[in-house]
Structure formats: structure tokens, C-alpha cells
């Protein structure tokens, strides 16, 4: 197993994911540099979300390991894992907002648990976090009372409550209209730029992938491993794998697309 690259923020090494005997993906090895917006892509059922759940430590790898800033995650004790997790912000596919709590209480929960802020300071920070995602003034609303797009942004507000170093997103724009999805992308990008956090997201929204991703890995469902890695625009134009080019062009790419890619290259 090659040692994790020293400058990488997250290093996945020889990771094999399996449910019992059923292997989902094998021998995944890639690095995510600090400050990147990294996309895990692939067709439905290829194990994207499973990979994310492994990275979050919700599932244990069948083989291999994941390193955060050079520290093994599965080799760490439960307490060390807890400490590592505290520097992450996670936004789940359906938001994962606690439905019995108001938005303010949702965002305040991690602050109450893990910071030394007093009640008044927490209220100020919550107001700021909600304002960041464009939900200023929605403190007293319950998750059931706001729209899907607002719910995703509220989940983002909770994810960034502790000023995380890594932000994980599972299908952030799933179920959103194009405008809301674009706004969410912009928000993620601007937050990334101003906080310098590393962003890892699972998505197959091509528009978002091209708009914000700096690097990506493609998981193939047939060969059950990663078949390409790199900048998504690069992959679309120059990937050696026809599947990846097809994925990134919604199946419109043919094998004789060299002309098109040349044109793109000259632009």
C-alpha cells in the first residue's frame, strides 16, 4: 500500500467496500488536496453514496484505509474518530434536519455540544450561519414549514456551524429546480473560497460538476472500481474511457469525438 501523500487532505488507499461477500467497489486509491472541491461521480448504484458513508466512518472498509491529513481513520480509536469528525460538516441527501427542532435549534445543537459559546453568543452565531445560507430570519421555523431548497440550505447551515475543515455533501442538488440548484452551487463555491475548506460531494448533476468541481473520481458499476480521476472538464474532453466521456456528455459523446475535443481545447 503506498503511503498517503503528505500534502493530501484526504487519502483513500486500496479501499474495498463490501456488504458481506458482495463487493461494491474495490481498490480505490485517490487523494483529495486541501481546498479542493472534489466530486465522486458514477452511474446509479455504483456505490457513490457508499463511498461517502465509508469516508464518514458510518461504514467500515472491508480492506484498505482512509487517511485524513495523514492519520488513518479506521486505525484510530473511537475517541480519535470523534475528534476527527468534529472538524467535518456533513449535509445529507434529504437534509437530515431534526424535524422536532426549529432551524435555530438544529444549527445550535453542534454549537452547544462542542463549543464554549454561551447562549447569547450561540444565538448570534446561529443568526450569522443562517444569514450565510440566505435564511436569515427563519430561526423559528420548523423543517416541515420550509421548501426543499431552503431545507438543503438549512442543512448546509448546520454543516458549517463548527467552521469545518471538510464539508461533505450527498447529492446536494437532488430534487431542486435548476435555479435553486445553481444558487446552492454558488453558495458552496463561495463558502469554500472564503473558508478554504475541502469539499467532497457525491453528485451526478453534470451542470454542478462542471461549474464547481476542481477534481473528480469516476466509479464504474461494471468493473467495480474507479476507472478515471481528474478535472471533470478534462475528463469530458480527453478521458481514455469512453464510459466516462459518455457520462459527462449525457451519452452524446461518440468515439469519434476527437474533433469536438480539439475545438474545446483551442477555446
Amino acid at each position, binding site marked *: 500500500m503506498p503511503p498517503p501523500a503528505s500534502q493530501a487532505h484526504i487519502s483513500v488507499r486500496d479501499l474495498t467496500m463490501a456488504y458481506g461477500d458482495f463487493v461494491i467497489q474495490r481498490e480505490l486509491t485517490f487523494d483529495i488536496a486541501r481546498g479542493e472541491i472534489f466530486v465522486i461521480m458514477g452511474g446509479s448504484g455504483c456505490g457513490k453514496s457508499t463511498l461517502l458513508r465509508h469516508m464518514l466512518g458510518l461504514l467500515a472498509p472491508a480492506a484498505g484505509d482512509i487517511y485524513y491529513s495523514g492519520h488513518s481513520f479506521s486505525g484510530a480509536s473511537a475517541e480519535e474518530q470523534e475528534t476527527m469528525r468534529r472538524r467535518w460538516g456533513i449535509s445529507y441527501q434529504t437534509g437530515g434536519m431534526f424535524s422536532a427542532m426549529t432551524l435555530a435549534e438544529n444549527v445550535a445543537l453542534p454549537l452547544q455540544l462542542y463549543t464554549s459559546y454561551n447562549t447569547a453568543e450561540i444565538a448570534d*452565531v446561529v*443568526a*450569522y450561519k443562517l444569514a450565510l445560507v440566505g435564511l436569515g430570519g427563519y430561526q423559528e421555523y420548523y423543517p416541515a414549514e420550509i421548501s426543499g431548497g431552503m431545507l438543503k440550505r438549512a442543512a448546509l447551515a448546520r454543516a458549517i456551524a463548527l467552521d469545518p475543515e471538510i464539508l461533505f455533501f450527498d447529492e446536494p442538488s437532488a430534487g431542486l429546480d435548476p435555479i435553486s440548484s445553481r444558487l446552492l452551487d454558488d453558495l458552496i463555491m*463561495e463558502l469554500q473560497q472564503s473558508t478554504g475548506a475541502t469539499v467532497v460531494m457525491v453528485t451526478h448533476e453534470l451542470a454542478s460538476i462542471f461549474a464547481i468541481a476542481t477534481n473528480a473520481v469516476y466509479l464504474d458499476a461494471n468493473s467495480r472500481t474507479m476507472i478515471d480521476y481528474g478535472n471533470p472538464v478534462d475528463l469530458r474532453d480527453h478521458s481514455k474511457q469512453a464510459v466516462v466521456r459518455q457520462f459527462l456528455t449525457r451519452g452524446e459523446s461518440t468515439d469519434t469525438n476527437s474533433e469536438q475535443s480539439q475545438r474545446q481545447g483551442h477555446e
Partner: protein
Amino acid sequence: MSDSNASFKLVHEDDQHTVLMLSGAWVQGSQVQDFAALSKELHAGAHTALLVDGTALDEWDSTLMAFMLQCYNYCSEEGIDFDTRALPAGAQKLLTLATAVAPHKQTESPQEHWLAALSPSRLAGQAGDVIMESLAFTGAVTIAMGRLVTGKSNTRFEDFRHFCYQAGPSALGIISLTSVLVGMILAYLGAVQLQQFGAEVYVANLVTIGVLREMGVLMTAVVMAGRTGAAYAAQLGTMQTNEEIDAITTLGISPIEFLVIPRMLALVVAMPLLTLYADILGIVGGGIVAGGMGISPLQYISQTEQALAVHHLAVGLIKSVVFAVLIAVAGCRAGINAGRSSAAVGQAATEAVVTAVVYLIVADAGLNILFQAIKF
């Protein structure tokens, strides 16, 4: 974390321009002065422009940003020009992001006293709503039953067997326990009183009549309300959350026919059988206590035989059918009318049990008066 504390200072450059000098470490855990202190100071002087100077800032995080947002909101309210040029670039960007959307003004709902929820008129209104809803639901169920009888109903009988199993055999364990204990309690209660007259042997009559007419069926119903009624509410509530009920409705199927009727019929079939079972075990439970009080098993059995009459048994069984319908109505109504969140499903289950128990007791009282009147 730096040991120097976060602080700010207002410097008046001239009449109108003021500089807010920030210094120290504005991070979580450092001592930050309240924004109220600044707003008081700002309020005292007439300012038209406020420049934030962050050059002396050590390190910063959301603590600073929360403070800046308050400054921004205050300044925009007071019409003060808020200038952030001298802040670190990251902080400027974050502040722009945070102020891109104007804060939502919540439509003020008048704050009400916490005891207001207990006001009799409101409670009566709520109870009225529940009763009206239940009546409407019962009406819909009656119509669905009519369609079932005339063979026009879309009821799925594949589910029916499964519900019967859930409501019947899988409840036997808990029913055994409660009914034996209830029989024993009745026997104790009676024996202590009857002993004073030397009439212990009549414990058998008391237990038999008490269990058959009243306690057997009532305890079974209460257990089933907690067990099956709550389960129905949770199942249908989850279906409401998953949009399954919408899907059923838009397929042109009445959710009442499709979901409620099989559940209700299963309970109507299971309850009399469970009641019969509970009656037998209740009498056995009474016998155990009677045995402990010196009544021989033979005596107990012969006394029980004397007390046993078909009409006592019938009263219990009639009640069991009525109770089954009430439990199913309470459970299914709470489930179908549930809201669309996980909290609402829990609420529906609670409501199902509470309304079912209230219905049971009211119906039991009513039926007893009726049977008394017709001397049944």
C-alpha cells in the same frame, strides 16, 4: 487559541467618520464584549459612516462574523454607511454572502401565555374537532363497508390475513398475562369483602360475571389499543409521510377501502376470539386465588358453572366487537390524518391510544347502561 482577548475601540476621525478598530483574537473561547456595548456607543454619537479596521486582528472565526453581521444589521437599520474595506478578504466575502439576502421578516404571531393551551374553551374546541373528525371518518368507513358488502370495494384481502395474525395470535402472550392477573385481582378484591360474611365461595360467581361482562373484554381492548391501534396509526402515518396515501388516492382507490377496512375487519375478527381466551384465563386466574383462600377446585368449578350464563358471555362478545371498531377507527383516523414529518407519526400514535382508551371507557359505560335498561 491566542491568550489576548478580542476587543474593539471606536475612534472618531471627524464629526461624521468613525473607525471601529478591531484587535486581538476573535475566536471561539475568547472574551468578546457584547454587541450591546457597541450599539450604545454608536447610538450616543451621530455617525453617518463607520469604517471597520481589521488590520490589528489576530485570528478570527465565526465569532467575528456573527459580530460583524450584527454591526451590519444595526448600521443598515440606522442608515449608517458600513465600510468593510479594511477587513481581511475572507471576512469581507463571508459578510457579503451573509448579507446577500435580506433577513426574512417573520409575521409576528402574538405571544401567548403558556397556560393558554389549557383554556377550557380551547380544550373543548379541540375535543370537538376530534369528535367531528371521528364522526366524519366513521361515516366514510360506513360507506366503504357498504361498498364492500355490495362487492364494489377495492379492498385488498391479501393483507387481511397478515393483519389478522398481527391482531390475533401474536397478541396471545400479553393477553394471557394481563387476563390471568386481572382474574386474580378481581378474586382478591371480592374475597376480602365476602370473607366478612363467610361467603368466600361466591368469589367464583363474582369473578365469572366480572370477567365475562366487563374486565376480560375491557383489558383486552386496552391492550389492543396500545398494541394494534398505535401500530395502525404509525403504519398509516408513515404511509402519509411517504406519499403512499397520495399514490393510492390518485390511483382512484379510496384509502379507507384499501387500508382501513382490512385492518378494521382483522380487529373485528380477532377481538371476540381474544376476549373469549381472556375470559377463560381470567376465570383460571380467579381460581388460583380462590384455591389459596381454601376453596377447593371442585367447589370453584361448580360455582362457576352456576354463574356461567350465555347472556353474560354475549355481553362481553358484543362489547368486544364494538371496541374493535372503536380501536380501529381511533388508530386509522389518527394515522390517515397525520402530518408529514417524523414527529407527526409519533403524535398520531399517541393520539390513537389516547382517543381509543377514552372511546372504550365511554362506550363501555354507555353499553352497561343500555344492557341494564333492557335487563340483559
